[in-house]
């Protein structure tokens, strides 16, 4: 008898399971990281074009639209960091310390610790250098 296998369609696959939805949110929030890099790059370019250009960019940053955008980007980046620190243990080889395997939760917490320390250092530097 000849075989006539049926292959099910994949349309809308990411809506089939909450796990896939969370995955898509992780991937989509990467766009926020890209957008913020573009915002900062534009700032650097404007700085190189002189004082007037730089002040214009600073003005644009203070506009209500820009503040809303920054709030959205901040939340997106937080979600992105959270989802990546959750998957981080899966991307690393087995780490054995003192004969015991390092737990996945420890790796995730180390990621958060590094992010918090980096943010504090950056914010204190920014505060310190303020004219």
């Amino acid at each position, binding site marked *: 008898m000849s075989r006539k296998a049926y292959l*099910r369609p994949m349309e809308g696959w990411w809506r089939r399971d909450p796990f896939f939805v969370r995955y898509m949110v992780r991937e989509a929030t990467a766009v926020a990281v890209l957008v913020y890099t573009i915002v900062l790059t534009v700032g650097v370019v404007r700085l190189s074009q002189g004082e007037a250009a730089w002040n214009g960019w600073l003005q644009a940053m203070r506009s209500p639209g820009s503040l809303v955008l920054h709030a959205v980007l901040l939340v997106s980046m937080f979600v992105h960091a959270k989802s990546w620190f959750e998957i981080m243990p899966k991307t*690393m080889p087995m780490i*054995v310390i003192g004969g015991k395997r390092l737990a996945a939760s420890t790796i995730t917490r180390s990621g958060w610790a590094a992010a918090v320390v980096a943010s504090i250092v950056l914010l204190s530097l920014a505060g310190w250098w303020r004219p």
Partner: protein
Amino acid sequence: MPDAVKSVEFDVLRYRPEQEDVPAWQRYAVPYSHDMSVLQALQHIKDELDGSLSFRWSCRMAICGSCGMMVNGKPALSCQTFVRDLLPGPIRIEALAHFPIERDLVVGVDGFVKKLEGIKPYLIPKEPRTLAQGEYLQTPEELEQIEQFSSCINCMLCYAACPQFGLNAEFTGPGVLALLHRYNADSRDGGRAQRMDVLNAEEGVWSCTAVGYCSEVCPKQVDPANAVNQNKVNSAKDYFLRFLSPKGARR
């Protein structure tokens, strides 16, 4: 509450290629008992209600890897999934996602078996050894590197959990890549260079986008997502080291 339940309804996705072009749902009412697994419910359907229902099973104790299917949309071994945890129903039963359905709950495994053969899933000795030289010794630390990955029972639940495999059936996939890692990471093995082509290919580790659901559904805690993703680093090393040494990273 469960003791008051008399029967549970099952919606089973049927596909009989000789009589239909597209699968269709069929409902069965199965007498309920507290200790009944989903597999036992299907066996009741086949024995008492409808002998034409097709599904695979063998050991009934989560070691043969035959009875994987979608239970309420999630990949599961039907022998270790209990009806009491899915009440009140109806319980939706479908063939493993992402695989071609041959008939009812039976999927085609040809592609999986071919990939499995392709990774040489056995120890390849580093050099020939005589019987008099004795056994290959391994420390507990060396064993730990491979032990969890050697627990794979080829049930293919991870493939049903992997959208990248669903979108591209050429992807070697979580289970086979985890087994590839199991042999490559074995201190007694010398076959790494022979397996790197499979690993380095676009259909190898690089088709994985770290969804991670494969590790969630694995009934044996193999963590295939970990095996695949740590080998992205190994694959990158294998690629770049060739520029540093005339023989490359290949041994």
